[in-house]
């Protein structure tokens, strides 16, 4: 609890279903694959007669900025439901948790877990790349080859990347 780093949880890749315990809802979907599920949640919330704010598609940066404002104004009872590629969903989750939401108040559906946000521990740049943990990708900031660690920072919602050579002792990966 409260630590900046956590080992990587497994994010649900099939529809976890609507969390019916909320009093009001925010639903965000990123990308075409996520949209049908998110629209299904949206319809169910409307059927329950509870207030909902939803964004499907659009520029991720704008959606995240708006999400931050919504979180700031949210009252307890609010639920956030997120669907989309892992990188977007985790970025939205980081915005929400830094605003005080608990994991119990957030539902996630990951439609694409091939793309990862990788945070370079050397130059502080975050790179979006199609890369698995344990593999190497180039940093878009400093160009270093980063080994993608099996750790996600809650704060910046990115996998931790270290320069490959920094991890090697006598030619063996640590």
């Amino acid at each position, binding site marked *: 609890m409260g630590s900046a780093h956590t080992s990587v949880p497994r994010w649900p890749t099939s529809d976890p279903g609507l969390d019916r*315990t909320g009093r009001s809802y925010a639903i965000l979907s990123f990308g075409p694959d996520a949209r049908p599920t998110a629209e299904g949640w949206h319809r169910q919330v409307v059927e329950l007669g509870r207030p909902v704010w939803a964004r499907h598609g659009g520029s991720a940066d704008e959606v995240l900025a708006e999400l931050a404002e919504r979180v700031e104004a949210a*009252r*307890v*009872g609010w*639920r956030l439901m997120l669907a989309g590629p892992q990188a977007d969903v985790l970025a939205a989750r980081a915005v929400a948790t830094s*605003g*005080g939401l608990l994991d119990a*108040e957030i539902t996630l559906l990951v439609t694409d877990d091939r793309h990862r946000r990788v945070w370079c521990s050397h130059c502080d740049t975050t790179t979006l790349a199609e890369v698995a943990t344990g593999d190497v990708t180039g940093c878009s900031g400093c160009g270093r080859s980063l080994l993608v660690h099996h750790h996600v920072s809650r704060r910046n919602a990115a996998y931790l990347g270290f320069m490959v050579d920094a991890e090697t002792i006598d030619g063996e990966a640590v």
Partner: protein
Amino acid sequence: MTTLALVVGHSEEIAPGIRELSFSRTDGGVLPAHPAGSHVVVDCGEGRRNAYSLTNPGADPREYRIAVLHKSDGAGGSGHMHSLRVGDTVTVSRPRSAFAPVSTARRHLLVAGGIGITPMLAHARDAVRWGRDVDLIYVHRPGSEAFSDELAALLGDRLAETTDEDEFGRLLDKALTGQPIGTHLYVCGPGPLLDRVLADAAAAGWPPERLHLERFVPAALDPGREFVARLARSGRDVRVPSGRSLLDALHEAGVAVPNMCRQGVCGECKVPVLAGTPLHRDEFLADDERGAAVMCCVSRSKTETLEIDL
């Protein structure tokens, strides 16, 4: 278990049927420190031990302060507590913290019913001292408003006090639907009040992770079904008849388990569970501990056999 031998430094009826007591070391020295919301277990004579919330500030305390409601049925040790006078000696446990303010909370909503105000007084004082955002709803019987003046001075309009059930419902409803995300709720009071607050909070969409309760008046426990406790280390089976606690049954079988409150609040009698499903009736264990441990003073078994690591 370590206990402290203390003396009564103050004993005063502060509201009808409510006596405030303070305990100190005979040499006036500093007592063990504790977070807000902590409690101590006090020997109340005739083998009774009760848990009481500490209302004093917890940093380097020179006295522990509690307030005791006199129960008219005379059972439960409150009569003994009310007979204590300055200079009497008491046996008190070290403080235990099971109801501390959540450090990451953005706001703290406190709800107290009757004598359940005692841990909330500690929370309110601590919140004001450290500049945390706090609101208190306090419902009590007419004429038994313990600590009202102090709370009003401390909290101003962040205190909502009522003696009226309907008004309490309106205050609660308004509070439950108006808290910024990041608020945590703490409630202490009689069972029906706790049940109502928890139910209303759930209906307003509060997840259990934001709700914290302190239940000092144990729900009347039914005698329960007979089961067998299997002691894994010795391979022995101990029969636990209906009406007898697991703690007592183990004791009669010659297996001593440390214990204090015998009400499922202090945490002393925790026993690891290896197989079977406990029937939990305590207020101590966190949800994620309930698979692997049982408080043997009050809890029983859902399965016919409960295998424990003793």
